[in-house]
C-alpha cells in the first residue's frame, strides 16, 4: 500500500514538467473535440493522433494519448445531453435522462452531473489501478509461455462467450484478425507466410493502419448515411450550478458506488464501457423507489451511466498495464502505441520502465482533475463546434487519417490499405460483425502465437502443458468454460424450473 503511494508520488515527479503539462492540456482539448465531433470517437481519435507522438519520448507520448482518451470520454456527454446525439456508444444511456433535463432548462445541471460523475468513476478506477496493478504485474512475472497463452485464450474466449453479438460473427472477426496478424515474416522461424510474393506484405498488416481505416474512414461513411441535421440547446455552466449539484451529490452515493463497481468489473473483463453504462442505468432504475421518474429528466439517471462508463473506460487500462492485454478497443490502440515507442507490453513494464508506468498512472489523476475543470468552463465553446458543417469536417478527418496511416511506416501502400479497411469496416458494422475482437486479435495475434509455440517447444508438443499446474490449468479451464458459456447457461436454465426474467442483464 505505502509502496504504491511512494511510487505514485514518484510518478507525479516525472509528470510535473512544463512540457508534459502542456501536452496534457493539448491532449485533453483534442480529446474533447474528438468526443464532440460526429464521425470520430475515442479509438479513432487516439489512432489518428498517434503519429504526432512518434518522435516524443514514451512517457510524454502516453500522457498525451491517454489525455485524448479522457477528453473523448468527457466530450461524449456534451452532445448526448445538449443534442440527444450520443457522440459515443457508451453515452447512449446518458441521453435517457440527460436530454429531458436539457429540455426542461436544466442543461447546466445535467452537464455538471455528467462531468462530475465521470470524474468520480475514473477516480475509483484509477485508485484500483494504483493499488492492484503492481500486485498483478509482480504475480504475472512468474508466468511462463503456457500461462501467457492461457491468459490470451481467456481473453479471446470471453469475447466469444460473453459478447452480445452473434457468436459466429465474433469468431469471424477474431479469426480474420489473428490471420492478418500472421501475415509477413514469421517471428519464430523467419520464414515468410501469406505474402504471395508481395514485397509490401512483407512488413505485415500494420495494426494501426487497420484501426485508422476501420474506425476513421468507415465512421465517416456511416455518418454520411445518416441525417445530419441537429437541434439542441446551448448552455453555460455557472459556478452556482456546479456547487448546487455537488451539494446534492452525496445523496446519491449508493448509485455512484454501485456504478463504479459495475464499471470497474466490466472494464477489466473485455466487455467494455457500453455494457457498463447500460447496466449502471438499469440497476439505478431497478433500485429506485419511483421508477417512473426515470427517462423524464432525473439527475440520478445521468449519474449512474456516466460513472459506470468512465470507471470501465479507465479500468480497461489495468489489464493492459499489468498483463499486456487490453480491456477495450482504445486500450488496444494504446498498446499498439507502446510497441511503436519500443516498449514491450507486459508485467515487465513495472520493473523496467518505472518512469513510464507511474508517469501514466499519475497522469490519470491529474488528467481527470484538469479535464473536469476544462469541460466545466468551456462547454459553450465545444457545443458551438457542432455548428461547423460536416462537409468541412469530413475531408479534414480523411486527411488526418491518411497522415496517420502514412506516418507509421512511411509507406504509400498503407494509405491504400487504410482505404480497404475503411470499406471493410463499413460493411462489417452494417452486417453486425463486431470490430473490437478484430482489433484485439490483430494486436495480440503474434504474441499469442509465440506463446503457444514456445510452450509447445518447451513441452515437446504435448497439449497437456496447458493443464500442467494449478494456475495455468484453471485459467485454461475457465477460458473453455467461457467459450461455451452460452451453451452451459442454456443447459443450466433448462435443468431448472422456469423462472421469470428479472431483467437484470444489460440490454
Amino acid at each position, binding site marked *: 500500500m505505502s509502496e504504491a503511494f511512494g511510487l505514485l508520488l514518484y510518478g507525479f515527479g516525472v509528470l510535473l514538467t512544463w512540457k508534459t503539462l502542456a501536452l496534457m492540456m493539448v491532449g485533453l482539448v483534442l480529446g474533447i473535440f474528438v468526443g464532440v465531433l460526429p464521425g470520430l470517437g475515442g479509438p479513432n481519435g487516439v489512432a489518428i493522433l498517434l503519429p*504526432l507522438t512518434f518522435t516524443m519520448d514514451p512517457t510524454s507520448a502516453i500522457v498525451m494519448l491517454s489525455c485524448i482518451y479522457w477528453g473523448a470520454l468527457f466530450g461524449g456527454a456534451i452532445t448526448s445531453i445538449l443534442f440527444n446525439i450520443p457522440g459515443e456508444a457508451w453515452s447512449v444511456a446518458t441521453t435517457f435522462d440527460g436530454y429531458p433535463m436539457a429540455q426542461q432548462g436544466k442543461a447546466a445541471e445535467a452537464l455538471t452531473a455528467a462531468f462530475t460523475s465521470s470524474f468520480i468513476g475514473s477516480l475509483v478506477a484509477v485508485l484500483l489501478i494504483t493499488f492492484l496493478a503492481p500486485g498483478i504485474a509482480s504475480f504475472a512475472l512468474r508466468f511462463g509461455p503456457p500461462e501467457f497463452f492461457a491468459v490470451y485464450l481467456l481473453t479471446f474466449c470471453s469475447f466469444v462467450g460473453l459478447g452480445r453479438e452473434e457468436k459466429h460473427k465474433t469468431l469471424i472477426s477474431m479469426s480474420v484478425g489473428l490471420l492478418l496478424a500472421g501475415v509477413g515474416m514469421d517471428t519464430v522461424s523467419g520464414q515468410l507466410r*501469406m505474402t504471395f510474393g508481395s514485397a509490401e506484405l512483407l512488413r505485415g498488416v500494420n495494426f494501426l493502419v487497420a484501426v485508422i481505416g476501420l474506425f476513421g474512414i468507415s465512421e465517416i461513411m456511416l455518418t454520411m448515411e*445518416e441525417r445530419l441535421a441537429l437541434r439542441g440547446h446551448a448552455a453555460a455552466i455557472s459556478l452556482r450550478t456546479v456547487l448546487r449539484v455537488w451539494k446534492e451529490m452525496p445523496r446519491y452515493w449508493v448509485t455512484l458506488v454501485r456504478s463504479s463497481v459495475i464499471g470497474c468489473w466490466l472494464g477489466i473483463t473485455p466487455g467494455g464501457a457500453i455494457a457498463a453504462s447500460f447496466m449502471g442505468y438499469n440497476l439505478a432504475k431497478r433500485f429506485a423507489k419511483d421508477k417512473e421518474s426515470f427517462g423524464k429528466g432525473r439527475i440520478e439517471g445521468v449519474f449512474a451511466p456516466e460513472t459506470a462508463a468512465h470507471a470501465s473506460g479507465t479500468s480497461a487500462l489495468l489489464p493492459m498495464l499489468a498483463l499486456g492485454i487490453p480491456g477495450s478497443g482504445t486500450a488496444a490502440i494504446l498498446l499498439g502505441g507502446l510497441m511503436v515507442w519500443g516498449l514491450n507490453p507486459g508485467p515487465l513494464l513495472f520493473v523496467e520502465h518505472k518512469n513510464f508506468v507511474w508517469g501514466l498512472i499519475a497522469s490519470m489523476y491529474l488528467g481527470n482533475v484538469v479535464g473536469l475543470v476544462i469541460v466545466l468552463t468551456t462547454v459553450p465553446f465545444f457545443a458551438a463546434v457542432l455548428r461547423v*458543417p460536416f*462537409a468541412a469536417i469530413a475531408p479534414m478527418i480523411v486527411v488526418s487519417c491518411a*497522415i496517420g496511416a502514412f*506516418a507509421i511506416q*512511411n509507406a504509400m501502400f498503407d494509405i491504400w490499405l487504410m482505404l480497404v479497411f475503411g470499406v471493410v469496416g463499413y460493411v462489417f458494422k452494417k452486417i453486425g460483425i463486431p470490430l473490437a475482437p478484430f482489433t484485439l486479435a490483430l494486436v495480440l495475434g503474434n504474441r499469442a502465437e509465440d506463446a503457444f509455440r514456445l510452450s509447445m517447444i518447451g513441452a515437446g508438443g504435448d497439449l497437456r502443458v496447458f493443464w500442467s499446474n494449478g494456475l495455468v490449468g484453471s485459467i485454461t479451464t475457465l477460458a473453455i468454460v467461457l467459450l461455451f458459456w452460452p451453451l452451459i447457461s442454456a443447459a443450466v436454465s433448462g435443468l431448472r424450473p422456469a423462472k421469470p426474467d428479472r431483467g437484470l442483464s444489460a440490454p
Partner: protein
Amino acid sequence: MANPEKEIVVEDPAAPAEDSPPVAGRRSVDVAVSLLLLALAALLGWDNWRTGIGWDAAGPKPGYFPFYLSTILAGACLWGLAKELRARRQPDEPFVSRSQLRRVMQVFVPTVAFCVLTQWLGLYVASFLLIGGFMRFIGRIAWWKCLVTALAFAAVMFVTFDVAFDVIMPKGPFEAWLGR
C-alpha cells in the same frame, strides 16, 4: 437558470430521403461477405498448408497456427451461411438505400481521388484540393470560406508534421518548387 436558453440548429438539406428504395438487402450482403471470407479462408489455408502445417524439431511449423485459424474462419462462415439460408423465407431488411449509397459515394469517391492525387502531387496539395473541393461541391459553402479553410488546414498540417514533429509526408512538384 441564470442565462436564457439558446438553441443551436444545424440543417441538413441534402439528407438521404426516408423512402428511398433499398439497393441491397442485409441478408444478401451478409451472404456475399461470408462467401468472400470463405474464399479468403480457402486461399490462406492453402498457402499455409504449402508453408507447412506439421511439426518439426522446433515445434509447430510456421503454417500450423494460421492454417487452423483459417479452418475456424471457414467453419464460422459456413455456420453463418447455413443460418442465413434457413432464414431466407423471412423478410429481409435493407442494407443501404439508394440515396444513402449516393451520400456514401459522395465521400468515398473523393477519398479515393485524394489517395491517387497524394501519389502524384504530394499529401499537402491533395489535401488542399480535397478539403476545398468537398466543401464547395458537396457542402455548397461559399468559395472564399472553402479556400481559406483548405489553405489554413494544409498549412497547419505542414507546420505541425513536417516542421515541428519531423514526420515527413509524401511530397510532389509543388513542394519541390518551394524548395522543401
